């Protein structure tokens, strides 16, 4: 697994040595790691192979890099503790180019060439949906870390699971009570004019209505847009809260332009941190966000009440108290999502052990064992918090964080309850044939 250190970081002499040393240390650490030694001596059990479909190139690359780091950390932790069923875990990475066509090919490649036991890892919804048929046909379990509602919608198939991160429908629903009670009753939504935005467009208004608040305007912004100011006049003057959720490289522009437009005299802001994943909250132009609130899956900044599990997780992945890579404060992680990789791998471990998984012939057993899971307790395996799992819709539900931007960092001010995000299942995968 490669850690792409920026070229320009290397060009700064002060970093060169440190990066090199870090690399040496990591190599040495790997060589003496207990798990590593044990397997190289024992060689009795072949590794469990996990195919990691990663966004190495294309629009999702910033997420892909951090998903790889988290995965590497989780796999190391699992292997250090004896692997799965006593067998080491080996991760094989293929780039899907953040493209659904290539994604499906990559799933095929895992299933038939690398002959991995499962496929895992994808984030972007269109890649998940594009790859799902290939996984279903190859009958290979496909564990995604996407937060999309597609798995829970039961429109995919029985081999696709999302056990490590709450889906967006649930996230939105659990935000509504806090927004209505603390931010304001008249909400204007700004969202990207594609599927990710539609989840917010469709699920927020009913959730707010149930809390006695209302959405007074919905502003969709086309995915190709790189400048946003011209949409801001559509925000009604009586707006109390701007609910914003933008993704892609232009989000920084979005926030900066919002700042230029309103100055200090602005409505309340509530956003999904997706807007600013992998982006330093202290970037020039973002001062405007001070005092605003964000949804976070897992908090980017270390919190005073962090559990030991959370601290251990952060150390293992290699992020500092500000959620940036240890040693490079400019390399900000995708903390709000990438914990899902860690937790998903532990779910896989649990399900494989429950199923007595031995090899690809046991894949159906693995599916059934995963479906039988109901709860994940908070702990080293689930550092983000406790979760419930609905085996019928293959989706987990966890707590969500609402954080306030204060003094250039994000402080958690509210944690939702799991029940806030539960909804009626839309179908049942377990009735499908295996």
């Amino acid at each position, binding site marked *: 697994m490669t850690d792409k250190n920026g070229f320009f970081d290397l060009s700064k002499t002060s970093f060169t040595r440190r990066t090199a040393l870090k690399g040496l240390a990591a190599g040495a650490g790997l060589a003496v790691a207990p798990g590593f030694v044990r397997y190289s001596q024992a060689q009795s059990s072949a590794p469990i192979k996990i195919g990691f479909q990663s966004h190495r190139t294309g629009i999702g690359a910033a997420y892909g890099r951090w998903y790889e780091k988290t995965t590497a950390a989780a796999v190391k932790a699992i292997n250090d503790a004896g692997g799965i069923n006593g067998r080491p875990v080996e991760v094989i990475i293929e780039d899907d180019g953040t493209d659904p066509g290539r994604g499906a090919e990559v799933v095929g490649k895992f299933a038939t060439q690398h002959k991995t036991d499962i496929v895992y890892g994808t984030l972007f919804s269109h890649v998940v949906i594009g790859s799902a048929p290939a996984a279903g046909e190859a009958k290979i379990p496909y564990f995604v870390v996407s937060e999309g509602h597609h798995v829970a919608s039961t429109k995919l198939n029985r081999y696709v699971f999302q056990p490590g991160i709450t889906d967006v429908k649930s996230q939105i629903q659990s935000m509504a009570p806090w927004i209505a009670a603390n931010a304001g009753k008249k909400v204007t939504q700004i969202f990207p004019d594609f599927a990710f935005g539609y989840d917010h467009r469709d699920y927020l208004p009913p959730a707010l209505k149930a809390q006695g608040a209302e959405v007074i305007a919905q502003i*969709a912004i086309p995915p190709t847009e790189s400048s946003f*100011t*011209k949409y801001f006049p559509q925000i009604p003057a009586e707006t109390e809260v701007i609910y914003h959720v933008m993704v892609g490289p232009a989000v920084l522009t979005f926030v900066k332009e919002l700042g230029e437009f309103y100055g200090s005299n602005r409505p309340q802001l509530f956003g999904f941190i997706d807007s600013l994943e992998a982006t330093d909250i202290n970037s020039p132009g973002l001062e405007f966000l001070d005092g605003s609130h964000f949804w976070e899956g897992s908090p980017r900044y270390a919190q005073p009440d962090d559990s030991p599990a959370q601290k251990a997780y952060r150390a293992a992945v290699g992020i500092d108290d500000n959620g940036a890579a240890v040693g490079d404060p400019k390399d900000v992680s995708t903390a709000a999502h990438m914990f899902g990789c860690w937790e998903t791998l532990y779910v896989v471990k649990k399900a494989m052990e429950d199923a007595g998984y031995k090899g690809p012939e046991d894949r159906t057993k693995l599916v059934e064992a995963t479906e039988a899971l109901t709860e994940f307790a908070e702990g080293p395996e689930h550092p983000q918090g406790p979760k419930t799992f609905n085996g019928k819709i293959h989706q987990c539900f966890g707590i969500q964080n609402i954080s306030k931007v204060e003094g250039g960092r994000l402080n958690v001010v509210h944690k939702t309850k799991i029940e806030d995000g539960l909804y009626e299942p839309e179908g049942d995968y377990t009735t499908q044939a295996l």
Partner: protein
Amino acid sequence: MHFGPHLLLAALEGLVTSAVLALTALGLSLVFGVMRVVNVAHGEFFMLGAVLAWAISTAISDHPALGFLAALVLAPLIVGLIALVAERLVLRRLNYNPEATIVATIGMLYIIQQLALTFYGPEARPVEAPFSYRILLPWFGYSGYKLSIIAASAFLLIATWLVLTRTKIGLVMRATQYDRETAQAFGIPVERVYAGVFAFGAMLAAVAAVLIVPISQAHYLMGQDPLLLSFIVVIIGGLGSLRGTVVAAVLIGLSDGIISVFFSPTLAKIIATLLVAMVLVFRPQGLFGTSSR
């Protein structure tokens, strides 16, 4: 917000888009007009300009204005040099064959994009504006830096226009554009002109990118949209017509801003794209081009 201010804001935004677009498209238009080369990698030169601006301004981080000015000078020079090398190593050896150069520039696109991803990374990174003055209008606030982009672009366009029309360099370029063989017969070093034009075209894209990067971040995939838009502008404006390119850029930029006032944005894009396509269908020489040559 009332309709008047809304329109004003849309127009301002449109002008900023136009200013950057005009520079980028002019680069494409020159390369296309003089060399008959469809440079698919033009957007990547734009991206390189932005990425280099980030690198340079990060290296010189004492004062944002200083870093930005250094980037404004250095980034285009480096990009121009890269373009020059590409021209020497690839385009010249293809004898500027139109189809072959399309494939070759697609190849360059992949190479530049991948190198940017490998060495710069997948994140969008901001560059601080040289100054951050917020102009307070009665209805809304507006970035003073954005207005300065319009001015800078206008200045560069006028300078380019003067070079093209008033100097010997411009004459030589126009002669080469008109007829390569004849120009050669008159002792014009066509190959050197081509190399110069290709580098200059890339530099224009890079300058445009340095200007825009303080308001829209450097990202390794940022070259795609400018490429598409520049193509449109070049065709609408008519080949090799500087005036046409600028007018078309303003037209596209403003319509992009203003149509979005009236329609849902995706629908607005559909309508705008369709309109431009129809212009091309019924006036393929562009709005300002001459019909035959």
